[in-house]
């Protein structure tokens, strides 16, 4: 049996472990596999228990650990998605190779918190912008793609990372680079930083991130915000009310990755604010109802679904993967068909879920998420890519609608 190692395509979702073979659809592993695999990926054990190894044995032949394969795929995706920047991949080749190598050494994918994993080129572009800001003491409140490791080459970097798998990966990479990366699982940060890097989320999460950044960033320092749909309105409004001053707006700097190494069109902006003296967080409406009120729904459009997967069977497999990956157990689902389309309605025990309509003639998948739930959005994108899509399938761009005060779409 091939050994489990970094580069093995593995996803450790909140309740299950999933193997991601190249040649076929993801395989949900037996119930007892997740905890030992988390322990192994988090560096708590050096060996995967024998019973897990034997459960995985027949599957690993189809999903070998192959760092080169991962790096090659990432290089292809970088070229595809950052090719619009004149000369970028050529001029940054050594740096990109370094980031790709680091990304390929991730032992497993886990559910993102606020920030999402991105292409190596996105990580590098963010690192270059942040590294150019004044000051050498940097705080990151989330780091799914090794930004902190890159910044720590020339700065004193603190990263909040409660996820044990990502935490271990970042620690290992920092040790490999022998740099100054301080990792903590505690979001109650103490100290004053030159730069704080935060992310937007539902209103309460955005406010918590911004409050932390204002408290921990010295006056005159910078607060760097990852700005994403559908919460840019919330964060832009909070930042403006807090008195932060926009210094730079980098549009669609991030391209999000989902396990299986598929890229979502669109992505996240990066906004660099200066933190003035006297910046203060405004009061916001808190609670779950306020979160839903801010974003009651979300829509995903996936075009060019291959003809081979345009049927009820594929939608059923999509629901099965979603049920395995979702943070809460499935409560119920329904699947109906008409002459030109099939519709799945799926909800978990929290009352979060989605409706997915697959239209055969149009080769199109429409997913509406009610109430909007970023975890389900990410997992639905992953499950759709895993069972319904191929390399030519495209998610209609998820992108912010404004830059600072300006709405710029027709």
């Amino acid at each position: 049996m091939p050994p489990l190692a970094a580069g093995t395509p593995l996803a450790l979702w909140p309740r299950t472990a999933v193997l991601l073979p190249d040649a076929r659809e993801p395989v949900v592993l037996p119930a007892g596999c997740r905890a030992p695999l988390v322990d192994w990926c988090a560096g708590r054990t050096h060996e995967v228990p024998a019973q897990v190894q034997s459960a995985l044995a027949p599957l690993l032949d189809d999903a070998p650990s192959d760092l080169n394969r991962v790096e090659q795929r990432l290089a292809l995706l970088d070229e595809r998605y950052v090719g619009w920047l004149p000369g970028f991949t050529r001029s940054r080749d050594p740096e990109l190779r370094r980031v790709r190598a680091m990304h390929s050494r991730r032992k497993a994918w886990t559910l993102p918190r606020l920030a999402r994993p991105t292409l190596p080129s996105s990580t590098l572009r963010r690192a270059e912008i942040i590294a150019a800001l004044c000051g050498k003491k940097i705080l990151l409140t989330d780091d799914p793609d090794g930004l902190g490791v890159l910044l720590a080459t020339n700065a004193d970097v603190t990263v909040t990372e409660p996820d044990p798998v990502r935490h271990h990966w970042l620690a290992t990479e920092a040790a490999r680079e022998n740099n100054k990366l301080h990792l903590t699982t505690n979001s109650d940060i103490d100290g004053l930083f030159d730069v704080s890097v935060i992310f937007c989320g539902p209103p309460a999460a955005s406010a918590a991130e911004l409050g932390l950044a204002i408290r921990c960033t010295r006056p005159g320092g910078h607060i760097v915000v990852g700005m994403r749909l559908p919460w840019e309105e919330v964060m832009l409004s909070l930042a403006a009310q807090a008195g932060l001053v926009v210094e730079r707006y980098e549009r669609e700097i991030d391209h999000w990755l989902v396990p299986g190494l598929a890229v979502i069109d669109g992505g996240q902006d990066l906004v660099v604010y200066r933190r003035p003296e006297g910046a203060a967080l405004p009061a916001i409406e808190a609670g779950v109802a306020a979160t839903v009120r801010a974003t009651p729904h979300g829509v995903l459009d996936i075009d060019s679904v291959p003809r081979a997967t345009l049927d009820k069977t594929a939608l059923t497999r999509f629901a099965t993967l979603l049920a395995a990956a979702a943070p809460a157990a499935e409560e119920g689902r329904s699947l109906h068909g008409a002459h030109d389309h099939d519709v799945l309605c799926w909800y978990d025990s929290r009352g979060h879920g989605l409706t997915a309509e697959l239209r055969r003639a149009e080769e199109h998948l429409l997913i509406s998420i009610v109430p909007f739930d970023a975890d389900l959005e990410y997992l639905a994108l992953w499950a759709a890519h895993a069972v319904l899509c191929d390399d030519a399938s495209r998610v209609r761009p998820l992108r912010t609608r404004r830059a600072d005060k300006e709405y710029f779409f027709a």
Partner: protein
Amino acid sequence: MPESAQKPLYHLGDGIVLGIGSRDTQLIDLKTDGEIRIDFRFIEPLEKVSLGWSGEGYESFLPRLLQEGVIVHGPATTDPVLKTKLAALDRLYLTAYEAALSPRARRAYELTLEAHGRRKRFFTRVGQCPTLPETTLRRALLVGDAAEVGAKKILCVGDDDLVSVPLAALGHDVTVFDIDDFLLTFLRDTAAALGLTLQAVEKDLRDPLDDAERDHFDLFLTDPMSNRDCFEIFLSRAFSLVKPGARGYVAVYGPTERLFREVAAEMKFPIVAWHRRHNRYYSQYMKIHTYESDWVEIRRDAGTVVKHAANEFCVPLNLYAEQFYQRHPIFFGFYDEIEEPRFATPLYLDMILDIAEGNSPLKLTARHTILGQEWTVIHGSTDDGHLTVHVDRARRQLTMTLFPMRAESEDVLRHAFMSGYKPKATQAKMSSSRDVWDLRIR
């Protein structure tokens, strides 16, 4: 003696543009966001005046147009309003790479921005939707600076994106083939004004090619509509016009990637590079278009075959429509702080849906309930889509999703939900885009 030497010229005032659409034509004032609908009889004179014209034959209209600022004296020039707005849109992307631009590339960008700032007519009827000046520059930079890669004989198959301008600025020998005589005149005038040299030739690609034109160019660029007919005719003509082994760049709308790859396989040309989301476009309102496209580098190989022989006429069926799914809008209705959540249970929700079915075209072919402790989802299929109703009794919030949006059904459902759960609503907010209708009631 040219007309311009005999009579004074006029051009459209600053911030005034002419938008010629498939349904109507408007004069748009970008300074005030005002619009005036234009009778079709005035399209031609307004096109002429957008290029700088004496107004011959329309003298009686001139005083009023001058008085209202629609036209001003003088030959056509760069419009400072357009230039400022386009420069602001360009900043969204340009900041990512402008520091790396060479002085020649910077000059090429400035000239491209000037050229786009001179264009005052937008012919959306035939699918013209220009790229941002910064995108136009990036297209040229992929070809390269003639000082580094050598001067190339370049063919632009259609050029409403004005990519000929930065290519000429970077030292290449550029020829534009286009069917739009307005655009050709515009390109010639603009090139002259900017001190650039390029050839603008009227050419209908459906006509056979001259022998002298074949195997002539080193490279081509084109941004066709993304449909099979357009791909086949544009690429057939382009491959006949360039030398064997020559490169080409084609804009492809993302969702049609599979179609383009099929055409590539049939015509046996290699895809050298695929730059996703390379091309960003703007509308006549000087806003970013939601449409964007990929930029694909291909090559004419020894084995490349054309679908339309160079010496034959071709009759495409579909030149002016993208070949992808324009989905109907989806409707979301969000009812916040509902007043009687204890009645938002499956029994009552089913009754509301029964009422809606009895009083509207809505017909649910199947109905399914998912029930939690504090929430309920009722999902129904229709002949052409679905309806999902989600209610959270603890949070007192109800959301309805209707796809596709059908006004009659939505109207009845809204009245029923309002009567049942929001009889004292104080706020209603509606927003709509091409894809989503979003109603929020509180």
